[in-house]
């Protein structure tokens, strides 16, 4: 594989991993915010209107930012009736053949997220609720996460191509599918 591609794979995988490991911790934010809500509402009788919405935002960030890392680790389930019986090389070829589906879907997502974010910035969109938060930060986070997901998908494609040619790009962390 040409050197720029090897470098691309290296840096994208690195970015996905860092981003995913950060997203991992968001589970604590979700628990913390919801626990705070339960305590303030029931025990000190001081309901906070922003807690559930904050948790909603956090979950969106959680799965969007965690997506690339989980894909890198092979956590996304596949129907493996045929796939599982193939050799590593055939698997790579199958993935290359169908990579268009993944790239097309992620491109649509990216297009939608960008246009939705531009709309939010132009109109100063806010969520219609008591807390009334701006929608811009979460949309920016989602654009970032989806972009990284697309970059990660391309990185996987490069890896599959090199695997199909019988010379895997060495990388750590990737596991076979469940």
């Amino acid at each position: 594989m040409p050197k720029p591609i090897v470098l691309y794979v290296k840096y994208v995988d690195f970015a996905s991993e860092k981003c995913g490991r950060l997203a991992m911790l968001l589970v604590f934010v979700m628990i913390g915010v919801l626990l705070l809500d339960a305590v303030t509402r029931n025990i000190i009788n001081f309901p906070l209107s922003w807690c559930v919405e904050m948790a909603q935002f956090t979950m969106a960030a959680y799965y969007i930012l965690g997506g690339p890392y989980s894909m890198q680790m092979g956590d996304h389930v596949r129907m493996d009736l045929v796939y599982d019986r193939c050799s590593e090389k055939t698997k790579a070829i199958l993935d290359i053949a169908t990579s268009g589906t993944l790239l097309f879907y992620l491109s649509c997502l990216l297009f939608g997220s960008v246009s939705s974010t531009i709309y939010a910035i132009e109109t100063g969109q806010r969520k219609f609720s008591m807390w009334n938060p701006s929608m811009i930060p979460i949309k920016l986070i989602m654009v970032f996460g989806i972009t990284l997901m697309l970059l990660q998908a391309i990185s996987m494609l490069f890896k599959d191509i090199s695997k199909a040619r019988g010379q895997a790009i060495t990388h750590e962390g990737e596991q076979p599918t469940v």
Partner: protein
Amino acid sequence: MSHELIAITMFATMLVLMLTGQRVFAVIGFVGAAAAALLYGEGAIEMPFNAAFKLFNWYPLLTLPLFVYMGYILSESGIADDLYKAFHVWFGGLKGGLAVGTIGLMVVISAMNGLSVAGMAIGATIALPEMLKRGYDKIMITGVIQAGSSLGILVPPSVVLVLYGMIARQPVSQLWLAGAVPGLMMATLFVIYIVVRCRMQPHLGPAIPEDERDMPMGEKLKLLRAGIIPFLIFFFMTGLFIMGITSLVESSAVGATSATIAALVKRRLNKDVMEQTLRKTLGISCMFLWIILAALCFGAVFDGIGAVRAIESLFITRWDLSPWEVLIMMQLSYIFMGMFLDDTAMLVIVAPLYVPLIIALGFDPIWYGVLYTITCQIAYMTPPFGYNLFLMRAMAPKEISLPDIYRSIIPFVAVMTFGLMIVMAFPQVALWLPEYVRGIR
């Protein structure tokens, strides 16, 4: 192209692409996005992302990552070891007693967690090796663990019922209560099956010799203390929610916190356990949430072409089916599709089509939620596509092969189908408890 043809083309494309082994979320998302673009033109290119905001409004799904987290913490916390020991001593003397005890263990775990992941992890790491050592038949116990852990989505709490509740717009507390009695009934049916089978073929589950379980009655009773922590977790999580004190999403946070505290008290929480838990939680949650995201886009296209009315006219006008025949057709089609397609995605795509019809035919949507969940349980176990199958394959010890796993589920699927028929024939099995609780409120 007629709408029916579009629907069939979409499903067929999805099925073919699934067979290539591409990631499920990519296949579903692609078919949804491509169909949207072909049907509605350029403007529809934003449809996949708009699904993210539908998902956003489905905030009860917050229970999903929290239950996954909780499940992994529980399986590491050592609670299950104590419980297993208690069941071992109390039931070990029976022929097949350890398998019966494992079902008991699974019921307790199911009452603490809303997915089958926790039960699978605990069953495969604690119960399975122990039973193999005692000469239990590997095929039977593999089935026991898969069937037992599937109770996780029927016995409250249940994430599947949360998802159903959002789609059918039904209160989750009522749905959870409706799952309780059928869940216990299903567990009882499993136990009956195991006891009868082991009575007839004792070599499948030899009794544990007396001297191994022999201990003073006082000691034996002390072992029952293993049940205290699970009961407390159940009370703080599900109990407070059913009583209306905590909201649904709060209850899952309370559950996650209490499981973490339990693990801390048992001194099982170290850096390595935390790392593993967080990583697996991210992996499983992302897998499910991306599939749901993609399925929502697919579902929106389906909705747009009027699939609800198409199915209604097919079942009622064209085939002239009675309400019960429609119901049975729905269950059969769901089991069939659940075999080949992803079960979570099926719920998101198919439930919105079926539920309005169920209500229009005069059936109780709460009761249908329970039927749906049992069908889901069956779909989770039937090859070639089932989450429990995947988990089992990833977690099982080496001596258990793939054909073993496939064969192991046959009797349990039969038992579950029988259970499903009981709940269909006697809706009160599901509806008695929610109605009773509604009455005393």
